[in-house]
């Protein structure tokens, strides 16, 4: 195995970017989703349509936004609409191909918690809350997840279901009336998971270079389902890494000032 010449975040971003097809309409959250979506746009998917919940449609920022409402998102957008419109006409309207989310906690059925650790009334840790996630996860045609994995994030039981994935598994999501198909892929710092086609339980299908199954089990709060054959995540091509590093250098320079 060659020396690792990229960080874990870079690998995750590159792996997520790979799964965004050119021309797809992507509703993007801040952080790793935004990094990966812009990386895709700057590499193999120049016609990827990025929508941020601040109402910017088809935005093409030259640097990564720090908040979903950065000014450059409006300046480079094809259209800027109000917040009620972005949620009603565009997300709920069924116009989003891929909702791209992170989360504080996930369970085996891809349900997400971004609300509280502990009891809702007397929380141990109060998290930011729902934002756009509950409706992104149910209205987008599919959902891509990207997040750090350990036993505190991949948990057996969520303290709070902020956002639905596959509910209690099986056909429970379908029966709920949620218009979209749900999460199709979860990319972490260790590997890639997809829901089982029938039970909808997350299944490890791919390992990042240098990671073994035991490491993943150790970072999963439930008895992990592992696919019979495990793929290995391709190392990010040098060109992709160069684009990503340029993007991050530009971002750092742009956001450094007051």
């Amino acid at each position, binding site marked *: 195995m060659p020396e690792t010449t990229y960080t874990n975040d870079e690998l995750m971003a590159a792996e997520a970017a790979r799964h965004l097809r050119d021309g797809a309409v992507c509703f993007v959250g801040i952080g790793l989703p935004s990094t990966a979506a812009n990386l895709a746009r700057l590499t193999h998917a120049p016609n990827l349509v990025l929508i941020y919940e601040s109402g910017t449609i088809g935005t093409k920022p030259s640097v990564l936004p720090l908040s979903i409402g950065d000014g450059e998102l409006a300046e480079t957008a094809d259209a800027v609409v109000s917040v009620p419109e972005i949620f009603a006409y565009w997300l709920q309207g069924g116009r989003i191909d891929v909702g791209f989310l992170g989360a504080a906690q996930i369970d085996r059925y891809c349900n997400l918690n971004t*609300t509280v650790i502990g009891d809702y009334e007397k929380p141990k840790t109060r998290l930011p*809350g729902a934002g756009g996630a509950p409706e992104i996860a149910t209205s987008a045609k599919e959902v891509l997840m990207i997040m750090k994995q350990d036993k505190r994030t991949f948990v057996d039981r969520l303290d709070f279901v902020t956002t639905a994935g596959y509910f209690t598994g099986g056909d429970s999501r379908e029966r709920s009336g949620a218009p979209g198909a749900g999460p199709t892929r979860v990319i972490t710092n260790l590997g890639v998971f997809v829901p089982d086609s029938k039970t909808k339980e997350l299944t490890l299908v791919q390992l990042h270079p240098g990671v073994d199954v035991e490491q993943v089990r150790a970072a999963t709060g439930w008895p992990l389902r592992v696919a019979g054959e495990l793929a290995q995540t391709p190392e990010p091509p040098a060109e992709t890494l160069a684009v990503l590093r340029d993007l991050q250098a530009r971002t750092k320079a742009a956001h450094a000032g007051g």
Partner: protein
Amino acid sequence: MAEFLTLAQAIERYVDNGDSVALEGFTHLIPFAAGHEIIRQGKRDLALIRMTPDLIYDQLIGAGSARKLIFSWGGNPGVGSLHRFRDAVENDWPAPLEIVEHSHAAMAAAYAAGASNLPFGVLRGYIGSDLPKQNHTIKTIECPFTGEHLAAVPALRPDVAIVHAQQANRSGDVLIHGIIGIQKEAILAAKRAIVTVEEIVDEFSHPPHSIVVPNWVISAVCEVPGGAKPSYAHGYYHRDNAFYIEWDTIARDRERFTAWIDENVKKAPANA
């Protein structure tokens, strides 16, 4: 018909103790100067409404101005937690804070319903979420045509909406430019509306992605250059990202926070 007032006059006249107040501006044009004036005037028991509480409500909550918060995402964007918000929810400091928690889509629908003088907003929302178990204002409504069940949320009708905009003209019409967010809905949903602006101009510049809100739905217009700092005003100044990061340290500690508010808000001159 909008009256030109100083910010101090506008807050004194239009914000009462106990009011429901929406200081809006979705990740842009956040009306910080108005929030600071509310703290300086010692307004109490406010029911604060805002999709993204941001630093502005962290400050109001920590300063003890709020009894209640209606919101949909309470973080420091790109940084992490709002520590004063957390301290209020987790430890009742400086006072207990009642929270009413929504998703963005629901809160946007609730503002739009308020602006439309409808008693409720409807959305395909909260499917599979635990939020309706905690927020009992979220109900279900049945479509009279298809029988489908949808989420219904009560309209937001704040006593006062406060927003920041780039320009007012001499008549008090207001131009908002760039990310327009939820400001128009907040103004139209509210009983009274205060708008702080970067400048008063003879003619609007009408850049792309701009909207105009007419003077006759606004109670007061206040010229407050820099009134959105450390947030940004598209075309005027950038977001002070360094301050958003620094806030994490300031707000993490009760004493440091209190000292900061004393120094930078309470002892600062009124916008008179």
